[in-house]
């Protein structure tokens, strides 16, 4: 009941004219970014953060704008998967498998509409799940002391590589790199200058937005330059055909939607899993359940389009649960959203629900509204979004780069910071080449200081006794999860990765990335 009244208050916040407009804008921009290959949810949100701040939006409006972009990307990713067999972003990879064959049979419109409905179902129920689960998790989180928080952060880093990670050493290296960058600047506890070497620009530390925009957005520009991929993603004249699926097809997909929502949501809530795993698991499980003989999946089965789309959208909603209630994001994009909160001086975690209920519930209400908008935007206007695919990347990518520059310069007004961002862009490109994941770097920069502060508080309480880190049952459980999460991929990862690779569309393997 308490939840319902909070949600009602949230709707009151979200239904203001400004917030509705921002939600609409976010949904529209998000769908376009999702549709464009090369711009995923993480880079899309990263480019827009500095802009949102230099415009002086308040916390709730800024969050509404950026989460709408996030949800919109999850919708948009499917468009190029279906029409061109090129996933618009990573989670949309599995949608290619049945979506593209459907398009080639002249059922593109049907596949697009069906996947739009699937996206809606997935994110709608995941948002409901968020409403129910997050307050419960908050209750547990209130039991956390500094020692438990330190272990929780360790857990986040240990599991971030995820089950599909190829090399755990590289995830750990990335996390340490991020933590190392976070240490730069004056120490919050004693005021000592650390790693500044007398450089005045470093006294305040490195702004995480500079790192995020550099690592995510600019490194993408370098990847495009390297491969000279300047052409348009799509060709004109992709026939869309009939838009609405028949009731029979839709009816057959309902059980699929139910199963995939649950799997996707769980994959999203678990740390380190994220939307890509959500769509992968939903697709594989659906194939194992309804198509044992293996004769319709992969050849344009509508259920094969619905399952991954429901899965990735449900995971997107699920990933917000740990981010909002614990302050520990489970995926790259939620890490970027965490940066938004930190920039607004809002510490996510259990206290967020008590101190800023208007932010949390306004955001959740905005997600419901955004979802409805996305559904209505996506079914009739899908033709408009497919036009976006005609924009050649030789124009698109420089524009992305320039908007990144404008955003960072707008916030900091310092050329040193802008050059630092270019440096991060180059670093991001090198790390991607070496298959070092970028998300732990970001998370390290974001959480580093918080993690250290908690460690120091814990040891202050215990008067320097390190055994406090395993001093409570809760901490021990978290350690066990962390260690399992880190070791398991070393044992299982290779097999999982091989299966994901085997399912990738042939085109994508050829172009690399």
């Amino acid at each position, binding site marked *: 009941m308490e939840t319902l009244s909070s949600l009602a208050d949230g709707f009151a916040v979200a239904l203001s004219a400004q917030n509705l407009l921002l939600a609409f804008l976010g949904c529209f921009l998000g769908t376009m970014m999702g549709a464009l290959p090369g711009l995923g949810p993480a880079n899309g949100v990263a480019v827009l953060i500095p*802009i949102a701040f*230099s*415009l002086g939006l308040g916390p709730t409006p800024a969050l509404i704008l950026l989460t709408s972009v996030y949800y919109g990307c999850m919708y948009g990713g499917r468009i190029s998967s279906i029409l061109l067999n090129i996933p618009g972003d990573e989670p949309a990879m599995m949608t290619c498998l049945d979506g593209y064959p459907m398009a080639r049979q002249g059922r593109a419109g049907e596949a697009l509409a069906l996947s739009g409905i699937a996206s809606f179902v997935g994110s709608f129920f995941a948002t409901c799940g968020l409403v129910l689960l997050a307050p419960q998790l908050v209750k547990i989180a209130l039991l956390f002391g500094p020692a438990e928080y330190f272990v929780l952060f360790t857990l986040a880093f240990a599991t971030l590589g995820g089950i599909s990670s*190829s*090399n755990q*050493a*590289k995830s*750990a*290296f990335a996390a*340490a*790199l991020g*933590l*190392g960058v976070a*240490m730069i600047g004056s*120490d919050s*506890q*004693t*005021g*000592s*200058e*650390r*790693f500044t*070497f007398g450089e005045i620009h470093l006294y305040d530390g490195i702004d995480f937005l500079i790192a995020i925009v550099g690592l995510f957005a*600019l490194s993408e*520009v*370098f990847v*495009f*330059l*390297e491969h*000279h*991929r*300047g*052409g348009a993603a799509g060709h004109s004249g992709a026939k869309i055909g009939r838009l609405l699926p028949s009731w029979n097809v839709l009816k057959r997909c309902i059980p699929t939607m139910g199963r995939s929502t649950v799997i996707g949501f769980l994959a999203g809530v678990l740390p380190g899993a994220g939307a890509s795993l959500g769509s992968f698991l939903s697709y594989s499980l659906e194939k194992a359940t309804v198509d044992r003989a293996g004769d319709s999946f992969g050849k344009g089965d509508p259920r094969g389009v619905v399952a991954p789309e429901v899965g990735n959208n449900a995971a997107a909603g699920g990933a917000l649960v740990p981010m909002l209630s614990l302050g520990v994001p489970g995926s790259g994009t939620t890490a970027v959203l965490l940066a938004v909160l930190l920039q607004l001086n809002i510490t996510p975690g259990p206290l967020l629900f008590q101190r800023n209920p208007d932010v949390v519930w306004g955001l959740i209400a905005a997600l419901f509204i955004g979802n409805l908008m996305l559904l209505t935007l996506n079914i009739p206007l899908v033709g408009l979004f497919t036009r976006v695919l005609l924009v050649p*990347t*030789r*124009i698109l*990518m*420089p*524009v992305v*780069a*320039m*908007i990144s*520059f*404008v955003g960072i*310069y*707008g916030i900091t007004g310092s*050329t040193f910071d*802008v*050059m630092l961002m*270019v440096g991060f*862009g*180059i670093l991001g*490109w090198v790390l991607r*080449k*070496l298959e070092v994941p970028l998300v732990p770097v970001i998370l390290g920069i974001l959480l580093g200081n918080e993690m250290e502060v908690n460690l*120091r508080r814990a040891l*202050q309480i215990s*008067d*320097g006794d390190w055994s406090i880190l395993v001093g409570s049952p809760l901490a021990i459980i978290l350690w066990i999860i962390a260690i399992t999460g880190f070791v398991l991929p070393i044992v299982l990862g290779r097999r999982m990765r091989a299966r994901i690779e085997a399912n990738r569309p042939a085109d994508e393997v050829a172009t*690399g990335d």
Partner: protein
Amino acid sequence: MSDRIFGCIGLLLAAFYLWAAWIIPDSFMVDVVGPRTFPYIVGAVLAITSAVFILRPDPEPKWPGLRDLVELAFAAAVMFLYAWTLPKVGFLIGTVFATAYLTWRLGSRPLGALTTGVLTSGGIYVVFHLILGLSLARGPFGY
């Protein structure tokens, strides 16, 4: 091989990091842990993981050829130059050239690239500065 080189660089970085952590000056405020402990842990993780790269390298990534590397280096240089000259030449002029360069290198014809540069620069100026009121770098002519 790339991973081994990367591991060596990682080890050097870790050593540098540990050294830099070691010389962190003490402050008049003290706490039990002190400002050095956590950086030591971070440095140790860097060192251990780098050693793993050297001992168990991954398969070789596909590096671009020399020409593409030069291409990337030039693009990076242009971006640095753009950032450095931003307050001197102003947003509008700098952006025209930076965008034009990137568009040209991604495969536009020179004239088309210049047009894209002018349109992008003007477009961003109108949308972000005139409509949304964002402050952009001012050049010698005030824009």
